[in-house]
């Protein structure tokens, strides 16, 4: 049974190509650009949407086990059919649109949110070869651009609901997502310097060529990225837009039934996407030590295994997200902004500068113009030219970049930001607020006095 299934699974792509190209030998347009991508899209959408449903189940189970409970147990064995029951329930629910809501926008908002989340899946490198739907050469840029459209969905949802809680939730989420997007964009540039490409598959290939996952070159970048990803996907401890204890449910307070499910779906898909980017950029994507041994001998098995490896890495990261969510309290809105603007964005910028310095110092061409005391470090060859592109040499270069990243960049940026932020506390929100209240009290008193005088 398993054998048949795996044979089918592994032979399928080849079979489709052969079947479609057999009769129209010269024209591969249909097979290459229409039929095969369509199959991929359907499969990916099917898997992702199922995965999203089961991520909810997983979240419930993980949280339950952390909280000394059992979680869903009633529908199916161990509650495995719970997602199906939930989905059915949501579909059958009454479709409520508040009377005072802006109907068209109210209906449009969840669609924007979910589409923005799903479109991104096209360029995520799920695996090697046919494991990727579209290998776009600006893949990463595409992901960042499209996923930022999701903010629009949330803002529109909050605005059109015509409810104060929704509005506050939308205000929060738009400010939060925009701020954290900047930090996120800055943090990935360091890794891109090593990858020298924006293509998602290219980044994975670059890590295979360098022989090291970029997490080891970019510890600070990874840290900033993961924190910003938590903020960007509205996960705890940054889940303010839907802070249940304050804003009931944030921007989707007025939504119910399937429209609400769309927001939920968008949130979990965004979680998968951000984890996928983290895995691709920093954790070697679908590659794994030793996997290239079977690349030549059985290409389909290779692709299949690469997909499994990618999925495993993504799930580990998502598990970490859940772990964080069920352990930590929530930040307050101003604290969240402080972290975004005072820590994440400067750290992202500093990471770019530091990475650039280490990179330039390691370049062979820099050697000649360096002062003597630095030349000592450059007796080794840190970079080598491999078919037109410079890559870190296998051990000297790798050790150099790992050491500079972990031992110098991280502590230095940390110390620097801590020093700066301690000074900047003089100008923080709290004092401004106090001053504002003082002024207002004085003004009110003056007005009262004037009234009394009259």
């Amino acid at each position: 049974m398993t054998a048949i299934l795996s044979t089918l699974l592994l032979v399928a792509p080849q079979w489709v190509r052969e079947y479609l190209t057999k009769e129209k030998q010269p024209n591969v347009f249909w097979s290459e650009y229409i039929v095969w991508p369509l199959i991929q899209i359907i499969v990916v959408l099917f898997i992702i949407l199922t995965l999203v449903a089961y991520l909810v189940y997983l979240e419930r189970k993980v949280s339950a086990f952390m909280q000394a409970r059992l979680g869903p147990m009633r529908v199916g064995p161990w509650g495995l059919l719970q997602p199906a029951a939930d989905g059915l329930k949501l579909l059958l629910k009454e479709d409520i649109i508040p009377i005072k809501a802006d109907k068209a926008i109210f209906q449009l908002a969840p669609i924007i949110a979910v589409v923005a989340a799903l479109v991104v899946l096209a360029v995520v490198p799920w695996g090697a070869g046919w494991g990727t739907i579209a290998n776009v050469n600006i893949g990463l840029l595409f992901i960042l651009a499209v996923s930022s459209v999701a903010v629009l969905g949330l803002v529109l949802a909050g605005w059109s609901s015509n409810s104060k809680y929704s509005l506050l939730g939308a205000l929060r989420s738009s400010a939060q997502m925009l701020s954290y997007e900047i930090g996120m964009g800055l943090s990935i540039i360091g890794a891109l310097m090593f990858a020298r490409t924006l293509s998602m598959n290219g980044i994975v290939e670059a890590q295979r060529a360098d022989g090291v996952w970029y997490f080891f070159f970019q510890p600070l970048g990874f840290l900033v990225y993961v924190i910003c990803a938590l903020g960007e996907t509205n996960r705890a401890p940054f889940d303010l837009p839907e802070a249940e204890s304050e804003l009931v449910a944030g921007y989707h307070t007025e939504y119910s039934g399937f429209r609400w499910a769309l927001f939920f779906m968008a949130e979990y898909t965004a979680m998968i996407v951000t984890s996928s980017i983290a895995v691709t950029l920093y954790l070697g994507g679908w590659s794994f030590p030793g996997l290239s041994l079977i690349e030549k001998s059985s290409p389909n098995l290779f692709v299949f295994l690469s997909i499994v490896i990618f999925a495993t890495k993504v799930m580990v990261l998502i598990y970490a997200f859940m772990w964080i969510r069920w352990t930590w309290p929530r930040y307050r809105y101003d604290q969240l902004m402080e972290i975004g603007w005072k820590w994440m964005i400067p750290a992202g910028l500093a990471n770019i500068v530091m990475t650039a310095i280490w990179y330039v110092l390691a370049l062979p061409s820099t050697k000649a113009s360096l002062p003597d005391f630095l030349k000592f470090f450059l007796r080794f060859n840190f970079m080598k030219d491999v078919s037109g592109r410079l890559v870190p040499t296998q051990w000297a270069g790798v050790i150099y970049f790992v050491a500079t990243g972990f031992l110098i960049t991280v502590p230095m940026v940390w110390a620097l930001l801590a020093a700066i932020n301690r000074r900047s506390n003089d100008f923080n929100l709290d004092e401004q607020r106090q001053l504002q209240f003082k002024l207002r009290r004085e003004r009110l008193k003056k007005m009262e006095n004037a009234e009394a005088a009259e």
Partner: protein
Amino acid sequence: MQSQEAIKPHETLLDAEEMVLNMGPQHPSTHGVLRVILKLDGETVTDLDCDIGYLHRGVEKIAEHDTYQMITPYWDRLDYVAAVSNDLCYVEGVEKLLQVEVPRRAQYLRVALTELQRIASHLLWLGTHAIDIGAVTVLLYCFREREEILKIFEDFIGARLTAHAFRIGGLQWDAYPEFVDRVKEFLKMMPTRIDEYETLLNSNRIWLSRTVGIGVLSAEDAINLSLTGPVLRGSGVKYDIRKAQPYAAYADFDFEIPVGENGDTYDRYLCRMAEMRQSLSIIEQALDGLPEGPVMAKVPKIIKPPVGEIYHSIEAPKGEIGVYLVSDGTGKPYRMRIRPPSYINLQALKKMSIGHLVADVVAIIGTIDIVLGEVDR
């Protein structure tokens, strides 16, 4: 010219208008049916008003039509997460009116049960307070331990939540044979569990940034607002009725009164955590020195206290709960007045919240530890 100035909305940083937000009565973190009307400048609270009474049952009026024994169950439903403590207040009040001497054994058992109830109440407070701030898991841990206490109650009293634990004159039943062992088992387990909560919260950066310096109340303000309980002690005032006017058998036991320093949410949190540990030690002392003897004093079947009036108050988990009873010599009280700690502590909300953000209001409601059953009566 003057009036035009007055009509203009209060100026803010960006000349934006203020927004009025209704928090509650149906809101996840108002701990019941409390309605808080917030005036917001952005997300900063500039003014606040509480609308209460959604849960008003008229307990004080009902009491005027019931015999003294019939009133006790109503007290269970005041602060329904600390029913045993409420019972103690009323029952001791009537005993004071009747001038009945309660047997020692009953007094010791009353102390043990009341302190167990204090732990249970503080556990519920900790869980809901943490969930308001976003730490969901603490709630479930707290409920795990609270469940043990409720099981002990169930076997002793027969009910879990609204226990009707005490009778006028003592206890209805003596402790069941395994009671002491089971409580001792709980006492052995509980300190490690409190450590567990503290590991999750005490030094958690997010928890600190959400509680330190939030809802600061000076000792002077706290006294002027006539606050009691942990809210008062968190501000550094060492006042606890168990020490100040010992009731039941508290004079026999040796315990500390934990106080805070800064009067902020974090200090009140530390205060309550320390109180739980103190309660454990009190229970241990009560069980170790448990005297033998009857658990019920001689009380007439029909209670007709002599004409007179008394005020009796005890240290409930939330503060001073008091009863003022006026007897006209008949079988029903002429007047019963309740001093509810939650209601009086809630008055500090405005003072504590103004200038903070909406998220802090939620934390402050949590730290005051209100139960609407008691606020509205």
